[in-house]
């Protein structure tokens, strides 16, 4: 089992919120994602067993949504918004800045497996542009100093 007993319990709790088990697909995928950091076939299979829905339906839903990486990523998944409001305030050069700082290109993971850098569509933080999401947290009104500090802190923590 990849999913921990806690995750399984959370999924089962979610199942109770809907009249049909199928509705628990997205919550289950989400719970699995936050536990594991990505999704894969093995996870679909486990979810399929827990909520008793054919695996194909799990995979169909999972691949529709772009928030869940389907392959392992670094410990910190840096997602920079490149949509219009952020772009108007320099999202592209923020990405470039991060690329240089981390020594990787967009889409890549650092060799120590600490950071993966990607850019994403609007995250609903347009009035605090430019911004990025790292794992489950938003970092807004970014400046170079802020970015430096954020990365420093994360490296320290790791």
């Amino acid at each position, binding site marked *: 089992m990849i999913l921990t007993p806690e995750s399984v319990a959370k999924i089962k709790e979610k199942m109770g919120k809907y009249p049909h088990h199928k509705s628990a697909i997205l919550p289950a995928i989400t719970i699995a994602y936050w536990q594991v950091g990505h999704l894969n*076939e093995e996870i*679909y*299979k486990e979810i399929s067993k827990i909520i008793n829905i*054919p*695996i*194909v*339906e799990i*995979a*169909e839903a999972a*691949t*529709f949504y*772009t928030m869940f990486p389907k392959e392992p990523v670094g410990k910190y998944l840096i997602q920079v918004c490149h949509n219009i409001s952020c772009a108007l305030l320099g999202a592209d050069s923020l990405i470039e800045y991060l690329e240089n700082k981390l020594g990787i290109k967009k889409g890549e993971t650092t060799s120590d497996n600490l950071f993966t850098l990607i850019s994403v569509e609007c995250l609903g933080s347009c009035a605090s542009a430019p911004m990025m999401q790292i794992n489950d947290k938003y970092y807004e009104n970014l400046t170079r100093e802020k970015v430096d500090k954020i990365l420093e802190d994360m490296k320290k923590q790791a």
Partner: protein
Amino acid sequence: MADGGNNITLTIDGREITVPKGTTVLEAAKKMGIEIPTFCWHPKLKPVGACRICYVEIEKMPKLQVSCATECMPGMVVHTDTEKVKQGRKAILEFILINHPLDCPTCDKGGECDLQDNTFAHGIDDSRFDFNKYRFIKDRKSTFDDVRLGPEIIRNQNRCILCYKCVRANKEIFGEYDLGVFQRGNLTEIDAAPGQQVDSLYSGNLPEICPVGALTNTDWRYKVRVWKAQQVKSICGYCADGCNLTLWKRRDKIFRSSSRRNDEIDEGWICDIGRYGYQIANAENRLTTPLIKKGNKQVTSTWDEAIGLIARKFKEIKDKKGGVCIGGMISPTLDLASLYAFSKYFRTVLHSNNVDFRNDYKMLAEKYGDTFGKMASLEFKIADIEKSDLILVIGSNLIKEHPIVNLRVRKTVTKFGASLYTLNPFATKSGDISTDEIIFNAGTLEALINGICVSLISQKLNASDVDVSNFGSMANPNTVSSASKITGISEERINALAMALGKAKNITLIVGEYIKASPLRELLSIALNNLTIIAGINKKGQIGFLYKSANSKGAEKLGVIPYPSPNLIGKMKEIWKYYPDSNGLAADRMIRAAKKEEMDAMFVIGANPIWAYPDGQFAKDGIEKLDFLVVADLFESETTEKADVVLPLSSWAEYAGDFINLEGRLQHFSAAIKPQNGSLPAFDIIGRITVEMDKPIFESVEQLNNEIKLLLAVLPEKAAQSLKLGEVKYSEEKISPDFSIPLFVTDDLHHYGHHTKEAKSLAAFGSEPYAEISPAMAEKLQLENTEMLRIESEVGKIILPVRISEILDNNVVVISRNFATTPVNILQMRKKRIDRVKLSKVED
């Protein structure tokens, strides 16, 4: 305008039409003969309005509307051919084509591709798209980027236009979950479920409904271009559902079979056995010449020599010992003419009533008039299942026995909301849509039925016109609680089912092989008769004791059994001016007689009793004792091996004829090709023998057909079952603790009888024997998939690789009989109501 609320009048292209409420604009236009192009629309699927090629203009609506998903409204004024419509459709085609490979010359759908046809019709010859087309498999220039999704299915995603018909049909109609839609936007892909193959029994329908060449099947790929193939109307020769087929041939070879939609029966879907089963006609190892046993060896011979020998021997035995010493078994997958000729030959030439088409049932009745026979002659219509609000399936692994009836049941449940109750000794695929899937202890069905009857009575839900006051004394068990104890089904569930039966307005009862093959067939039939009377099913709905093979119903109607109904006998006498007065023997009695050396010869056509009869040793012993055995078949078999004369038989694709399906529906099929490899159809073989014996029984097939017509006109004796309750007393089986696990021998999902293993495509789904057990049982025996399992009964032992079932969940073992190197029936005993075995792991 709306009339009475149920009809709607609207105008399409200047003409008025009135249609029932709920009709779509597309359907209304179709009725008027107006062509509207479609891709994602399918008559049997819920519309999704995705492809948008079916645009029409509707007055007062500024936007183009998709006709497939727009319901007709009173007073609507629709235009299907305005400039705006044409422009809209052309734009859609342009969009579809931008990333389409346009590899028509190498695409197998060429000639029957909706995209090709529509593009042609819209005169699109140039594209404004000047980028590289998106390729689903990158780094390859060619479009031959095919991916195999299943044993018979190839996918080319680049050609896919995302109409989703395959996935929709798979889930909506077939209830299968082995195919899906993944990713999104213009990266959307159709693919097999993770870790799975697309290999359901209905998988062949997916390429068939694909409007382009995205899904194709291995069978037909790159063999013939459609426009060079000829189409022949045929009927499936396997199960009794009677699906309508088209056989595609070129130069006396068949290349594929496809569905020929008949809404009364198949609604345009066929199972893979029907789709690929024709390949037995092309199989390489067909028998090619008659064989005659010389010494201990069968040597090739000629038709003349073989027919001469058969005629001489049969005449000799008949003259010396009487026709009663000759037995005849014929396969119920043969056409009416052959079945009839067989019966007529035995009865009028050999003067024997020893004819039977039931070669794999235990302990058949010995005389006419059993309850089972009456129940089996009741009317049943596949389409009428849809009228039911409750479907009760008893003793049937429905998908295996009747794939297309299964789809109709699914439809009635999933689309119209009927409830389904299944009563079986093990779990089946119908479980996912059952209101309650009742899995009773094997061998206790009559107790369960008694329980339901008692519950109906005690809940006062029994039919009002039936006197049930004595039922308690006729039944054992006669309380719900004792029935519950015996069967292992809780009282609540028995009561709930009884309640549902009592409340239902229209019931379809389907009874399957479990009852028919059982030696307690008669007792079970009486129990079921009680149930139909007490629950009033005989008055609200239909009862289907469904026959199994393509022409079983025909064989029954023509009296190809030792004791036909008096009416039938009367008619035979009238036509033939003769009818033998000896008592006929049923198939199993013939074998017993042979074993006791009371039978000298046997004529077997298309059947394989040594393999099929549910007591392998018994059948083998009997048949080996015969002095003279003639077997006609397509392939060598366990039974042909023992024969003195072996005759190459034609498959149904090689001659014209008729089948009667389980509904009693007579259906004609044409000859697709000539008899192959020097084979002959059965009626022809029989005709030649009778000529050789100087007793020709027909001059032409027409004559046969005319006589058949007369017989078919004979009504079954008082068709309805008697309104009399019968006594049903359950007696406990003694179960040896050593041999306690129920064994069920069935056909593999993709096989039917002993021929289909020779069909290449069907063999691709699996051609190795296996034994299925539940995951719990596997764990107990410490077996992993494909490890070896020893299965022992009191009379035999076999070793098979194990398959851990996703469906089975109780202590049983299910063995598919189709490809066992050792026939599975050596484990079976003809008198046992449940064959029981012990299981153990084979340590290597």
